[in-house]
């Protein structure tokens, strides 16, 4: 399924913070304000979605065996 390239969560959040701060400065034109608002809404929805959908990733155990990293699944409890 072709999907839009997802921006990493931390970048989205940083961008959202940047947008809100810029908007709060209050020197945007109406057009800029509306563009920023719509981008901000998309970002905040994406961020919230990312948090909602986040699932536990499989943990790993690594060990060095003759200089190489060997990964194993790590099951706790």
């Amino acid at each position, binding site marked *: 399924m072709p999907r839009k390239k997802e921006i990493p969560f931390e970048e989205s959040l940083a961008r959202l913070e940047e947008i*809100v701060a810029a908007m709060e400065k*209050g020197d945007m034109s109406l057009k800029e*304000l509306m563009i920023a608002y719509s981008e901000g809404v998309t970002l905040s929805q994406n961020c*919230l979605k990312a*948090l909602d959908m986040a699932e536990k990733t499989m*943990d790993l*155990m*690594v060990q060095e065996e003759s200089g190489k*990293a060997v990964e194993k699944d790590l099951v*706790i409890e």
Partner: protein
Amino acid sequence: MIVDSKGSDDIMWSGLSCAFQVLSGGMELAVHSVSEVNRYIKNLVAGELPLQHMMVRGEISNFKKYPSGHCYFTLKDSVSALKCVMFRSYAQHLRFLPVNGLQVIAGGGIAVYERDGIYQLYAESLVPEGTGDLALAFEQLKEKLTAEGLFLEEHKQALPRFPKKIGVVTSVAGAVLRDIYRVVSHRWPMAQLVLYPVQVQGEGAAEQIARAIGFFNRSYPVDTLIVGRGGGSMEDLQPFNEENVVRAIFASRIPVISAVGHETDFTLSDFASDRRAATPSQAAELAVPDRQELQRYLQLLSGRLRQVAADGLEQRRERLLRLMERTALKEPQKLLAERRQRLDIVSLKLDQLTKTALKDKKHGLEVAMEKLETLSPIQVLRRGYSVVERDGKILTSIKNAAVDDEIKISLKDGCLKARVESVSGQKG
């Protein structure tokens, strides 16, 4: 006063001397104030690096603990005594109560107390001698690494806000890993834990821990490292006081959270790490953000976003409304009225001018037409004259006609055809 200044002290001396060398000429010696002398000596001592971090062995005497928490005592041996002070911030970590007569090893630095003109040891650590080599080794290593600057705040790295991978250096068994797992999967489940299992006590533990930290830095990049073990005796915690472990933590380019023991047990690893956690659970809390907290924060952000956009619109709407209240937009006819009046005046003028001009022209035309009328041959005929033509040409002289010529005579109401019977010229 005679000061034997030489070597590097020259610089300091000459720097100070210019300030208080009252009598400089000839044989006379300069006169100094007491505070000048004390300050000079204080600076001399401060310039001696070996005096800044040292261990001193002696017997405690005159021990006094003040309500402020600061401790004052003297260290002495068979021939000599050294004044010591231990401030509350260090004294509170003492694991024993110092008493007079106790043989101890104190760690700290020598400095001059300018007011009293005395030098003393500012002790940062105090270990009863004979309590074991571990405690002594700990204090010695601590002094050494402090002197090297391993524990300086300026070397601390910031932890990443949203780590994807967290390296854990601890035992595969034991509560530490479970505690970290529990907290991370609750707060930030998308983070992956990568355990490098090591022995956390006993022979070889320090080497394994140091190697694990090096391994993550060398060949297995993670965002944050948690290095730790549960609490235990001083002996159990020893690997985290080993120089190689402390240095590995200091050298790590990956930010390290140390999670060794509990609140009261500080290890050198704790001092060298970027953040210290009292427990493994706390280490996990330091390592990852809380998803729910972040959700609330995001909602707050999007609320602000909406608010700012709405405010921006509202401000503009108000400006627009205020503008629309202005005459120009509300009653444009008022602005037009004046112009309309001007237009009226102008067009009236135009009208009049046109009329006058036309009248003039009409009059001229009438005059011309009258003139034309008077000149018209019909008028002439009306007055009783006639016009005689021969072959379509008007006859104006008898010379133009002969007897028997046919002529046409035009009168006011028609014409006659006639024949010339005779031609006679006018007399006279």
